[in-house]
């Protein structure tokens, strides 16, 4: 069955098909449509789950993790300020090793206060222990939620998963989405049978105990890290199985025109669609352009990324985030992935799309030109912060209004 769904509605469908038991919630734009859709379905009787509105994201993520530890299937969703407000509990819940699946609808962080997407919110959580899947399309959002439960509940992994989509651009954009048949979903994602974390009469288990002393603490953190690294292979297994049942294949990275690519853009999430259009345009001009979209970000699919780009000549990482005082976060991660290669492409850094700011086709052209120039001269330009002349003029106008010049 194919329907026109927003990214948020697609997420809700993923949750409905996954037969989730418990939904602790708290509204925040641009995520709220997910929880409203689920509330409506439960009210209409098409979904059987316990829906509770909590008083904040901190209590919401806490309740979600705790419920997950009792052995039921749990879902929750948030965005931006909400993700950060619950941040403390992300580390805690990951340490509980429970298979919670959560959607983050990316929105830039305060301050200044804003609503549209960039990735500083989700990337702030990259070290927490949550696995991360980043989506480009509405279909991918639905499918990733099903894959996420399989991954999280696998006993070789047992870590929570964050599925990410861009606020507005994907959350509120309707696309045709294939809603999988529930029988196929049941085959792919059977009911959760907790073997590790669960509450059961006669088998008391203490969660979240103190582990004072470095060696004990380190043991648990190493366990988490190794489990996350294991998740790479498990992901491939699970997504392979998903592909066989549903006919849609999701690798850890998604390549566009990569086979003979010389100049490659690296991006994530929904802006990649713009990047792919720019690749086609560059190809039409005779540039051997390609795009590599990072889909699984934690665990970091280092070998897959390396395999995809090490033979290219130039790679431009387009970060929609800024680690203030350092630069693009993904640029650093890709750099480290390539460091040990004897032959490696020139690596350029661009930051753009902050707070939902557009990346125009001229800016993409500018990026490809910069890559070609770098290949010609062998020199890598300093990291660039994208800002058009038009935007600069507008900002000058605003500064004038505020009496600051």
């Amino acid at each position: 069955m194919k329907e026109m769904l927003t990214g948020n509605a697609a997420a809700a469908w993923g949750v409905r098909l996954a037969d989730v038991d418990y939904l602790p919630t708290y509204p925040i734009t641009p995520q709220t449509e997910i929880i409203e859709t689920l509330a409506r379905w439960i009210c209409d009787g098409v979904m059987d789950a316990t829906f509770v509105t909590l008083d904040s994201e901190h209590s919401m993520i806490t309740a979600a993790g705790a419920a997950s530890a009792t052995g039921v299937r749990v879902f929750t969703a948030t965005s931006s300020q909400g993700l950060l407000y619950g941040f403390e509990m992300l580390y805690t819940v990951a340490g509980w090793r429970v298979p919670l699946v959560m959607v983050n609808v990316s929105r830039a962080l305060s301050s200044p206060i804003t609503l549209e997407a960039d990735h500083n919110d989700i990337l702030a959580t990259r070290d927490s222990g949550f696995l991360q899947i980043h989506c480009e399309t509405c279909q991918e959002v639905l499918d990733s939620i099903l894959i996420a439960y399989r991954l999280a509940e696998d006993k070789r992994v047992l870590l929570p998963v964050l599925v990410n989509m861009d606020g507005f651009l994907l959350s509120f954009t309707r696309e045709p989405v294939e809603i999988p048949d529930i029988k196929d979903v049941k085959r792919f994602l059977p009911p959760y049978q907790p073997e590790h974390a669960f509450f059961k009469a006669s088998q008391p288990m203490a969660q979240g105990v103190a582990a004072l002393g470095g060696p004990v603490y380190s043991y648990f953190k190493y366990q988490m890290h190794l489990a996350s690294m294991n998740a790479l292979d498990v992901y491939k297994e699970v997504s392979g199985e998903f592909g066989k049942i549903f006919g849609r294949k999701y690798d850890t990275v998604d390549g566009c025109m990569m086979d003979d690519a010389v100049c490659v853009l690296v991006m994530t999430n929904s802006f990649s669609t713009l990047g792919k259009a720019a690749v086609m345009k560059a190809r039409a001009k005779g540039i051997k352009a390609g795009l590599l979209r990072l889909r699984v970000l934690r665990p970091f699919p280092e070998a897959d990324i390396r395999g995809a780009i090490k033979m290219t000549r130039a790679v431009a990482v387009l970060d929609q985030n800024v680690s203030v005082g350092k630069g693009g976060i993904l640029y650093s991660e890709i750099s480290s992935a390539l460091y040990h290669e004897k032959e490696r492409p020139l690596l350029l850094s661009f930051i753009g799309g902050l707070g939902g700011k557009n990346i125009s086709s001229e800016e993409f052209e500018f990026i490809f030109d910069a890559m070609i120039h770098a290949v010609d001269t062998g020199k890598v330009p300093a990291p660039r912060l994208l800002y058009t002349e038009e935007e600069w003029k507008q900002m000058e106008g605003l500064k004038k209004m505020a009496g600051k010049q």
Partner: protein
Amino acid sequence: MNQNTSFKRYLKMDLLPTPWCPGCGNGIVLKTICQAFDELNLPKNGTVVVSGIGCSGRSAGYFDLDSVHTAHGRAIPVAEGIKYAIDALNVIVASGDGDLLGIGGNHLLHAIRRNTNITVVCYANETYGMTGGQVSPTTPHNIKTLTTPNGNPDYPLDVQFLFKHSGCYFARSTVYHLNHLKKCIVEALKFQGFSFVEARTMCIVNYGRRLGYKNSNEMLLHYKEFYKINDDAGELAPNEIGIIKTNTLIKS
């Protein structure tokens, strides 16, 4: 009718109209706060307004005063930070009931406990207006909202009870009872210690409309008919507005 317009000096008139929907009561609260400032002739260079997040949270930016628009739920600690740094300032919080009583509820409890000398004006519309009308900590039992399509299973928080024996100031009024609302705010501003005014205000677009109100005037008339003024109460009944007088601190 009071035609005095000198309250406008507390507003950035060139920013008007506000972003609020037609029929929203928030503008009345905003104006009444300014009228209370005007009545007390609060110095513009000695008065600060802080808001959290929400429709009502947009208030801070409309005052022609130093202001902070802070994170959801955090208006009170921002106000306390300012007040404890510069005691001479008049510090006023203007924010929503969801913001102050839900996600920021913990801060309210402890501002009461500390009896911090600030004034809070709470825009009480019984819903999370800005996010589109979901259930909030003040939504009445059984009310249908976007996140409680079957009716709210929970009961609302009656904030006056947080103030019992606190030694702080508590008042409740509505945007229908203009003079009363102004009096509640004026008294709150004069109060030495923590003062809180629950200003009942209507959200027609994301709330009242779904309850069956045809327009915001109907909601306003509901305030007129339902609420009785009782300024001498130790406790306000659900249909009463007033200033709670007997808030004496019980010292052990």
